């Protein structure tokens, strides 16, 4: 077994030469490449940040990881299983925090938090206890029985974080969950999120287009460029943040300039 294979076997998440093509929405006979031979691994308990500009294929990678779409070529493995083909195996093992809160408007805050645990088959008493506990932990005590429309944007995003943590998943996937929040709320939630992931020993992939956010939330940053290839992989923990920021910026701009040159 090579070193790469050994790493892959130990990895919580593994993308191996993944290609994803979509049919062109207008011209159905044509396809376009969204992900091109993407390979990377994330170790158990690691917090990885995926950074890239809009349209670089982050969301496609995210959907592949969630098992919502299937790779055209290559393989995706999470905890050693295929998230698309073994979709139901991941019940209670993966949770997702989305860019917008995606709360069900007909459920109160606590009922929204209960959703994942309810679908995982926990009984009503147990799930209420877990959901109330997470809401309290995220500073929403007193708002448990409010409907989403009665909560602020920051509160709603807290509820969606509580919903993800409540299922006690092994893998946590986040797709720019704080991008729509104001500066202060976003900062506070990022801190809370980091603390929760570390305390609970979760493996986490955090997708973002903000370098600062990637630096704050990632122990390792994967810089993507279109079509979803890795332009740079850099370890944050223990490194000089300003130097890392410059490297990341350079990698992003360099790739952009290359792409512009090719287009010209």
């Amino acid at each position: 077994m090579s070193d790469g294979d050994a790493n892959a076997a130990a990895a919580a998440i593994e993308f191996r030469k993944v290609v994803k093509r979509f049919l062109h929405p207008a011209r159905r006979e044509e396809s376009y490449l969204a992900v091109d031979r993407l390979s990377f691994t994330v170790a158990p308990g690691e917090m990885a940040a995926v950074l890239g500009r809009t349209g670089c294929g982050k969301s496609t990678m995210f959907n592949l990881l969630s098992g919502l779409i299937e790779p055209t070529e290559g393989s995706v493995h999470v905890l050693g299983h295929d998230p698309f083909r073994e979709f139901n195996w991941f019940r209670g093992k993966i949770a997702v925090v989305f860019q917008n809160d995606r709360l069900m408007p007909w459920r109160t805050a606590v009922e929204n938090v209960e959703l994942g645990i309810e679908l995982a088959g926990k009984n009503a008493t147990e799930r209420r206890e877990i959901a109330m506990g997470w809401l309290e932990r995220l500073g929403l005590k007193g708002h448990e029985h409010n409907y989403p429309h009665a909560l602020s944007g920051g509160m709603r995003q807290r509820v969606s974080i509580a919903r993800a943590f409540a299922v006690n998943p092994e893998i946590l996937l986040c797709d720019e969950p704080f991008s729509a929040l104001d500066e202060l709320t976003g900062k506070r939630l990022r801190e809370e999120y980091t603390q929760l992931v570390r305390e609970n020993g979760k493996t986490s992939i955090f997708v973002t287009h903000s370098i600062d956010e990637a630096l704050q939330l990632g122990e390792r940053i994967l810089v993507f460029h279109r079509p979803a290839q890795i332009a740079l992989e850099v370890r944050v923990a223990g490194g000089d943040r300003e130097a890392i920021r410059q490297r990341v910026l350079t990698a992003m701009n360099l790739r952009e300039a290359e792409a512009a040159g090719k287009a010209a």
Partner: protein
Amino acid sequence: MNPWYKLRKETVISLGGLMLAWQIASYFFPPYLFPPVPAIAQKFFAILIDRESLANAGATAARIFAGLTVAFLLGAILAFVMGRSQRSYRYVYPLLNFIQGVPALSWVVIAIIWFKGTEPRILFIMTATTLPAFSFQILDAYSSMSKDLFEMTLSFRPSKLDLFRTLILPTIVPGMLTAWKVNLGNAARVVVVAELVGATGGIGYQLLMQQQLFDMAGALAWTLVLVVFVLLVQQVITRIEGWLLAYRPSTERSA
């Protein structure tokens, strides 16, 4: 200002105006054209306190509910079939569109030829006339389901039943309630026509009797019974709607 109070006041004024105009007309025309309002009211209340008359009204109500229930169930199944598969949609949609275009009177003729008993005839007519609207309204509600919420729910890997229970059903409930309210009015109009097809009871049958007796007050009283019934049931549905959709912000509900 309380909008309900405002609405109630306006309703009283407009309906009171109509009654007044009718009463004035009754002074100038014979009773078989414009019977006085008190005579209509007297016949109306006589129906409400007479057991046999109430049984007639009850028969009509039962036919409306039976027809709507069958149409709702079939319509919901067809809506889900169309919602789940584009291929099914391409086959089923034109059929429903065609059925919707058939006049109620044509269904009456078809029912007379196809069915022997009165009740199967009425059930068939009621179902055929309200089925497309149920199906289209439920399909609309199903199609408007948020892709974001669908993906979020799917991320928790629900079973098909759980997906239906936690996401699809709450999404289509508002559409279903609207469909019931709209179709109730349509069904009330169709049921009286359907009851003319050999029924020996029901509001349609009673209207036929009043026509043969040339009793305009009786015809109007029976019509009022049907209208009041529809309004009462619509109120009940509105109450259920208010209870089930209490999560909506008030500005949305009054829009």
